[in-house]
């Protein structure tokens, strides 16, 4: 079982809770969600507690992540978009820390659960739709009619725009989920080779050096992917929010 690459995605109940016939148990996944917000929240809170005019190294990290997300949002959605800054920053930090925590051996990766990433993506799209109609009223539908399109093509273009809009939550969630899932499975498979090869004596141990090196390399790659996927998630969120703010392209 220890060599089963899928095993790491199993959910186990820690505290069974059942309400109205639905299972709301506190699981290992829930525990790592709590750990994610605890680590991220504590880091951001503690490193900035001294409020140094000249930042310490750790305070710089918090400030850099703040300014990173702030400039990302401002570039994509303009200064009006800054009202969504707490939302985008929370999303970025949550996904980033969940991804990074998942890289520790024996830890559970929250973002490797399609339902989690899909819920986050629906939250983004839901915010876009609700805010888009709230701010622009029916004018939000202009989003589906790009300007400067010849009359004959309009129905076709509108159809394509609607399909692409509806596929956004799917692409947003599947991108993150698939990246985390594939990375962890690859890592586990290569690490499994090391274990099973070294069972064949001296030659096996010698032969396991290659998969071991691969495991190290893939771990480094996964750190990059963890950051990159959080970044991609946040950037796309900013771009979708821009559609809600300025639907007229």
């Amino acid at each position: 079982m220890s060599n089963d690459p899928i095993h790491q995605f199993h959910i186990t109940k820690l505290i069974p809770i059942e309400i109205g016939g639905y299972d709301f148990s506190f699981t290992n996944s829930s525990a790592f969600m709590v750990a994610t917000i605890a680590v991220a929240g504590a880091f951001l809170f503690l490193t900035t507690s001294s409020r140094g005019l000249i930042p310490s190294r750790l305070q710089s990290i918090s400030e850099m992540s703040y300014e990173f997300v702030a400039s990302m949002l401002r570039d994509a959605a303009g200064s009006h978009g800054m009202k969504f800054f707490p939302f985008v920053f929370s999303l970025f930090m949550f996904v980033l820390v969940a991804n990074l925590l998942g890289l520790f051996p024996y830890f559970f990766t929250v973002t490797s659960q399609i339902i989690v990433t899909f819920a986050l993506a629906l939250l983004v799209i839901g915010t876009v739709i609700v805010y888009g109609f709230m701010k622009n009223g029916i004018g939000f539908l202009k989003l589906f009619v790009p300007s400067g399109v010849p009359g004959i093509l309009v129905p076709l273009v509108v159809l394509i725009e609607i399909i692409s809009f509806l596929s956004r939550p799917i692409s947003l969630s599947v991108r993150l989920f698939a990246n985390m899932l594939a990375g962890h499975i690859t890592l586990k498979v290569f690490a499994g080779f090391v274990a099973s090869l070294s069972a064949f004596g001296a030659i096996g141990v010698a032969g396991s050096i290659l998969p071991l090196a691969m495991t190290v390399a893939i771990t480094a790659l996964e750190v990059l992917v963890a950051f990159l996927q959080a970044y991609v998630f946040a950037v796309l969120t900013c771009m979708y929010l821009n559609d809600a703010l300025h639907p007229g392209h």
Partner: protein
Amino acid sequence: MFVTPAFAQEQAPATNETHSLEHAESEAKFPPFDPSFYPSQILWLAITFGLFYIFLKRVVLPRVGGILEVRRDRIAQDLDQAALMKSEADAAVAAYEQELAEAKAKANAIGQQARDGAKADAEAERKQVEAGLEQKLAEAEGRIAAIKAAAMKEVGTIAEDTTAAIVQELVGGKADKAAVAAAVKAAQE
């Protein structure tokens, strides 16, 4: 309804065979696609992400924003102060240069004045000396003229005396004084 597969899954690895068909089905499922945990996942995600959002929005982001704001203000303030100091320094340099120029001009003026004064004094003195000399020259010339006139006047007397003496020697006896005087006067003219 949702509970059974979930419970079964928990004990899945060791006792796989002894479980029901229902369990075998759930075991075959790829865990992320197993819907039995979806309600739990969504609920806990909502709770944790909600708390995280509120915590960041209420506590962390105002604080970090405040730190950055304070720093930006401080830098702007320092820059303003530096600019102010620079302008003050520039003003001081300008004032110093102006004062220097004024002092130079003043020194030049004083020098010029002194030079002019000295020149005028020398000129006046020279003129005075020249005037004195001229006066003395005139005086001397006057005296010479007087002496000459006096000498010329005495020439007649001497000539009369000499004539009288010569006449006495040559003729013997005393010459008439008036005749001699008339003769000299005639000779003189």
